[in-house]
Structure formats: C-alpha cells, structure tokens
C-alpha cells in the first residue's frame, strides 16, 4: 500500500487523468481501480480530493466529447468498428441503438458503470443526433457520479486495501495458476471452435476479377450478387456493388424465399 501511495503521490493526478482519459476513449484500462487508489491516497492526505476529482472529470469529459463527435461525424462507421469486437457484429449496432433509445437519455448517467455500454454511450449519443449541450450535461452528471463513487470507495476502504495489498505475494501464485488454467481452457475452446467451423472453410470462393469477367460475358444473366453487410445500410451515401441486392443476415429464413435457384449467388460483405 505504501508503494502504491508513493506512486500516487508522485504521479497521482497525471495517472488518474491518463487512465480515465484512455478509458473514456474506449481503451481497456483499469480506470475504476485508479480512482479507488486515488481515493485511498486522498484518505492518507497524499492527494487532494477536489484536485483528483477535477482531474478525473476533465479527463472523462474530454474523452467522452471526442467520442461523441467521432460518432456524430463518422455516422455508424465508428459503431460498426466497435461492434466488430462483439459476439454478433451484425445485430450489435441495431441492438445498441434501440436499447439506448428505449432507456432514454438518462442512460448516459449510469453508462459508466456498465461494461460495454460505457464504450458505446458517447458515440451512440453522437450518432443519434443528441444535442451536444444536453449530452454534456448528462455526461457531466454521469462522470461526477462515477468518479465520486469510486473515490469514496477508495477513501472509505483504505485500511482494507492496505491489508489486501500486503497479501499480494501469496495471491501472486494463485494468480499464476488462474492465468495458466484460463489459457488452457481458452486453447481447448479454440480447438473445439476450429473443429466445429472447419466445414465453413470449404466454401467456394471467387476473386473479384473472375466475377468481373463473368459479368462482362454472355453468362451475366445467371449471376446474382448479394450484399450481406449490415453496417453499410445505416449511413446515407453508402455504396454497394452495382446491381447487387441486399439480404438482411438476421432475417435469412424469410429472405431465402425470394432468391432464385437458377442463378449463381455471389455473397460479399465489407
């Protein structure tokens, strides 16, 4: 604990600002832990409470505002990028937008406590044309609630944290075992997934030049090009391959009924 407090004393404000700014930009940094540590440092009179709260608030508001404007100007492209990390990228954007809309603007106040929503909230607000002044007010309240909650936790649990940290050496070996076990389980999981999806890799593939040559031939009438992207259909001005049609990947059973069986179907995404 003394070591941690020593670091906080030397770099406390910069560390708090940096970690919270990184988290606000969507990077996976332990900002909540930094706030708890800063709270403990305030309790031991190493840092000033108002100053650390200010550093935290400024970092969050700058990072969130950057995300807001990125969402506003990139349309749904930024969300498409963030959604690629999700389990189901095809539905991620739509689900996130609908959920955000249904829960209302107040979602911004609690968003920082919810993993996933935390990263998406600011760019979603930007993409969904929320007024910046309104966003800033709600985000201010959310940032204040988030910062003060974790600072308070650190402030009140300083003694508990000291006891916990002194046991870190013993916990170190247990942590090693947990990490090794997790790696083994992950390797097994990847192996099972590899075997399960092996059959999908035998799908016939064509190069674009091959397709272009076929489209220029007399055989072009037997070609149907199908766009199976989701993200390409949220922004006006999006482009697609000329003459292609769209299939909604989440409504495949219905869409199949309209597809001709006498044509060769060429699928593409981004």
């Amino acid at each position, binding site marked *: 604990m003394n070591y941690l407090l020593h670091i906080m004393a030397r770099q406390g404000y910069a560390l708090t600002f940096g970690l919270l700014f990184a988290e606000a930009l969507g990077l996976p940094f332990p900002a909540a832990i930094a706030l708890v540590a800063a709270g403990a440092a305030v309790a031991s009179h190493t840092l000033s409470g108002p100053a650390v709260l200010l550093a935290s608030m400024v970092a969050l508001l700058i990072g969130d505002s950057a995300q807001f404007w990125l969402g506003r100007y990139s349309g749904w492209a930024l969300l498409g990028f963030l959604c690629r990390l999700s389990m189901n990228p095809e539905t991620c954007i739509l689900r996130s937008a609908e959920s955000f809309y249904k829960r209302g603007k107040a979602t911004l106040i609690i968003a920082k406590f919810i993993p996933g929503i935390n990263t998406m909230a600011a760019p979603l607000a930007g993409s969904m044309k929320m007024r910046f002044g309104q966003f800033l007010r709600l985000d201010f309240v959310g940032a204040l609630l988030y910062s003060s909650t974790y600072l308070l936790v650190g402030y009140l649990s300083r003694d508990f944290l000291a006891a916990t940290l002194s046991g870190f050496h013993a916990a170190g070996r247990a942590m090693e075992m947990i990490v090794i076990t997790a790696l083994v389980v992950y390797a097994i999981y990847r192996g099972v997934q590899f075997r399960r999806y092996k059959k999908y890799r035998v799908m016939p593939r064509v190069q674009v030049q091959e397709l272009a040559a076929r489209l220029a031939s007399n055989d072009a009438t037997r070609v149907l090009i199908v766009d199976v992207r989701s993200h390409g259909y949220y922004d*006006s001005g999006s482009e697609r*391959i000329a003459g292609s049609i769209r299939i909604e990947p989440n409504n495949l059973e219905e869409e199949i009924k309209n597809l001709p069986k006498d044509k060769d179907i060429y*699928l*593409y995404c981004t």
Partner: protein
Amino acid sequence: MAHLLREKGFNTFVIVGGLTAWRKAGGHLESVPKDDLVKLPTFS
C-alpha cells in the same frame, strides 16, 4: 450464411475481399438506395 444457402440448394460463392477488393479492382459501384437504408432511432 454462404454455408446455409448451400444447404438450401443455392449455388453460392463468396467474393474474396468483399466490397473493399471490388472497389480496389475498380469495379462498378452504386449508392445504396434510400429505401434500402435502415432507419435507426435518433434524438433529433
């Protein structure tokens, strides 16, 4: 999806590189028709 279509009896192929490869190769593009755009909720 391609696998599912094959299972349903459609002669399906996957375009290597997708839209990005098509664009790079100088293939013809068109704007997504307005009627096809998915309307997402907005606060405005």
